[in-house]
């Protein structure tokens, strides 16, 4: 007997056990705790894992979960909430699925009360800038509908506003139309102009159309600036009827113009909501760029939807044009300048193309830079240009795309770190395990892996011989550990012995683990005795263990 072999004596041998196995050689005792100690020992630098939830969660009560406020008269809830259970304490909690309405409400509330809380000294200039902001944000919302929702890359947005403004202004001066008719006439003009420039959009795609509309913008500029009827001498057309009464005090006039622009912005937001968020918007979200054929195959007439959105936006832009004429008592030529197009592009790019909040916040930033910080001089255009450059170089979709981009970047970094980590604590990676709710499963897998590693060290000729001699009954400690593990395995793919003919033919099968699904035959080998079959099954399991 060699040094690393040990003899195991069957404790039942004294009473005479059927089938022998009184004394077998067996591997020496190994401490099963060693694997555990090795596993938990400190080998690699440990980094903190998991996520911290910054999100505020209010407490909830199971009975109150359906008790929600709704927008009268719809069934729409005011804030989309969701009941969840805290992973640690299992307490019921409520989270807001979409927090944007809160920020919209706060932002618009600020704009609504701004005239009363702004500092007295430069209130007038700030409110004037606020009026400009309201008009430009409305224009940019309509533009976002065209570029983002309809996916038509048009740069002639300001041209529509300008044409409508000039025509309504001209009509007001020459026919003496009242101010309240101007936006409605503007809608008509916007529709006609929209139809004219929507025609090429049916044929051209993407940037070809963008360049064409850039040229159209220039065409409008040259046409308007060179025609005598539109006041080519005075730099614009002025003298339209306005809703701001000149007899009011200057402060009242400022308030009136500010609030009218504010309500225009609210109206534009509603328009955006009801086009982007309803049927047309959903149709067009299905027909994204390069997925048009899929949408078409699904029976979606996306071209019609695009043109519809374009025309509705054009009507809205015409309305804004008429409003503009009534607001400023006229229109200046610089509405057609390439510079205006650049500023508009800066507004929607910085915020993020295709989102209402992007258009509004981008406009706010640019208007603050352009109209409030006037003392910076030409420097402010360099700042705006630099902001644009920064957005283009580093952000995928403007300010409001940062969140998504950051999440993607974080996941990418996480995966990189995951792939460089060779050391594994268990079957599950640390990052994965934070995302599994049943932590018992994490521990089970970890324990299972350690146990298999330990059992692998026990497998040797001795215990295989021992099993061959006597598959059932009392065994040495090493073999018994291995057998316990095998027997405790899950039902799927568990090997069983099938008796074809008693005492003559036995086969090995594997259970499916699914109720009602029959076991499958794993090999055609026929064992003559049940003990041989037991041993064959044991060898299969040992092989699976060693290979895993």
């Amino acid at each position: 007997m060699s040094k690393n072999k040990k003899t195991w004596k069957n404790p039942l041998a004294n009473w005479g056990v059927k089938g022998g196995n009184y004394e077998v050689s067996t591997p020496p005792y190994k401490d099963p705790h060693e694997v555990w100690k090795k596993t938990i020992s400190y080998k690699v630098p440990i980094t903190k894992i998991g996520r911290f939830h910054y999100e505020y969660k209010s407490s909830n009560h199971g009975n109150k979960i359906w008790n929600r406020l709704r927008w009268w008269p719809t069934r729409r809830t005011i804030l989309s909430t969701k009941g969840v259970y805290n992973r640690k304490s299992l307490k019921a909690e409520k989270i807001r699925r979409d927090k944007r309405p809160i920020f919209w409400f706060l932002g618009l509330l600020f704009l609504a009360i701004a005239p009363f809380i702004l500092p007295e000294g430069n209130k007038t200039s700030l409110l004037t800038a606020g009026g400009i902001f309201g008009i430009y944000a409305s224009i940019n919302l309509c533009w976002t509908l065209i570029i983002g929702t309809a996916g038509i890359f048009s740069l002639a947005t300001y041209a529509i506003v300008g044409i409508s403004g000039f025509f309504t202004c001209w009509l007001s001066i020459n026919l003496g139309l009242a101010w309240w008719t101007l936006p409605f006439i503007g809608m008509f003009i916007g529709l006609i102009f929209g139809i004219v420039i929507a025609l090429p959009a049916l044929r051209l795609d993407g940037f070809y159309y963008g360049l064409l509309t850039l040229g159209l913008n220039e065409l409008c500029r040259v046409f308007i600036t060179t025609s005598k009827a539109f006041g080519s001498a005075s730099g614009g057309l002025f003298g339209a009827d306005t809703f701001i009464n000149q007899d009011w005090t200057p402060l009242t006039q400022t308030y009136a113009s500010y609030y009218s622009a504010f309500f225009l912005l609210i109206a534009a937001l509603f328009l955006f909501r009801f086009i982007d968020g309803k049927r047309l918007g959903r149709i067009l979200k299905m027909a994204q760029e390069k997925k048009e054929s899929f949408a078409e195959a699904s029976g979606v007439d996306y071209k019609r939807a695009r043109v519809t959105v374009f025309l509705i936006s054009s009507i809205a832009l015409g309305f804004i044009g008429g409003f503009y004429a009534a607001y400023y008592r006229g229109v200046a030529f610089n509405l057609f300048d390439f510079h205006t197009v650049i500023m508009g592009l800066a507004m929607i790019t910085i915020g993020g193309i295709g989102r209402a909040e992007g258009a509004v916040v981008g406009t706010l930033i640019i208007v603050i830079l352009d109209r409030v910080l006037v003392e910076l001089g030409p420097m402010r255009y360099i700042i705006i240009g630099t902001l644009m450059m920064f957005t283009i170089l580093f952000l995928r979709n403007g300010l409001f795309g940062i969140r998504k981009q950051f999440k993607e970047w974080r996941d990418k970094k996480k995966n990189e770190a995951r792939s460089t980590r060779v050391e594994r604590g268990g079957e599950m990676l640390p990052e994965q395990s934070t995302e599994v709710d049943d932590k018992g499963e994490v521990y089970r897998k970890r324990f299972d892996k350690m146990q298999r590693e330990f059992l692998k060290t026990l497998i040797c000729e001795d215990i295989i011989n021992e099993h061959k001699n006597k598959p059932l009954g009392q065994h040495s400690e090493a073999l018994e550990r291995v057998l316990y593990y095998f027997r405790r395995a899950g039902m799927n793919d568990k090997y069983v012995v099938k008796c074809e003919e008693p005492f003559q033919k036995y086969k090995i099968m594997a259970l499916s683990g699914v109720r009602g699904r029959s076991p499958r035959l794993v090999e055609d080998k026929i064992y003559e005795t049940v003990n041989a079959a037991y041993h064959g099954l044991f060898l299969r399991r040992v092989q699976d263990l060693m290979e895993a």
Partner: protein
Amino acid sequence: MNDIFFLFLNGLTVACIYGLVAVAVSITWSALGLLNLSYGFIFSFAGYGAWLAERHLWGEPIFVLFMGIAAGILGGVIVCLLIFIPVHDKPNFTLRGMIGTIAVSLIGGQVLLQFFGPKAKLLPEFFGYSKIKILDVVITADKIGIIFSSIIMLTLVVKWMKSSRRGLEIRAMMMNPHAAAIVGIGVRKTGLYVMAVTGAMTGLSAVLLSQTYYLSPFSGLTPMIKGVSIALMGGLGSVRGAVIAAIILGFNEALTTKFIGGRYVLMTQFLLIIIVLLIKPRGIAGILDKAREG
């Protein structure tokens, strides 16, 4: 008849200048997939480069001309370094690249305004003041010079693209950017070449135009928009299409001025462009049908 010939010559002169910008826009789009709207800035940049060279280095017209071209090359390379190289491999490149070039032209125009002031500058007459009379039409030297120098420039660029190794690389990028990258044509290096060559063409058009018109920080805008329109009509990516479109639009300009009135030039021009694009959405040549879309 002579009247029309004279007007056509005028149109051709202008078309030559704008055609250079158009071919530049075209090549940049087809080779790099970049819609470069900063040619207006490169135009003014090159003009000011030539003006500085004339002021501070040497007043010889030919030298000034070449310095303008050199400044154009520099401007093109600056745009390439600022926009094309950082953004070309990022998602949504076409839109971001276009807006980026607009941002460059915004910043560049303001910087030029800061340095040189809003006052217009004039470059010297490069080709003297002599006149030639052909068929009762007096042709001034600058017209002949403009036509010939742009044709020479264009020929050189086309020859270079057809016969040199770099030109081969650029043409490979035009045909299939992915395959070109796979066979080892560096996107960034080729981008630099393309932007340098197109910058040179814009620089030439800048010095040619600034001797008759004037030079100001934003004077490049009209040539750029006209160039873009010509490139659009000719079909983005096609030099031949751009040349044909430039000639057609030059002729249109002459005829419109003669029969309808100078005010309506842009209207007829855009009508023409829209009609052409409605018939053939990829312009006159349209050879690159869908090649740059994938």
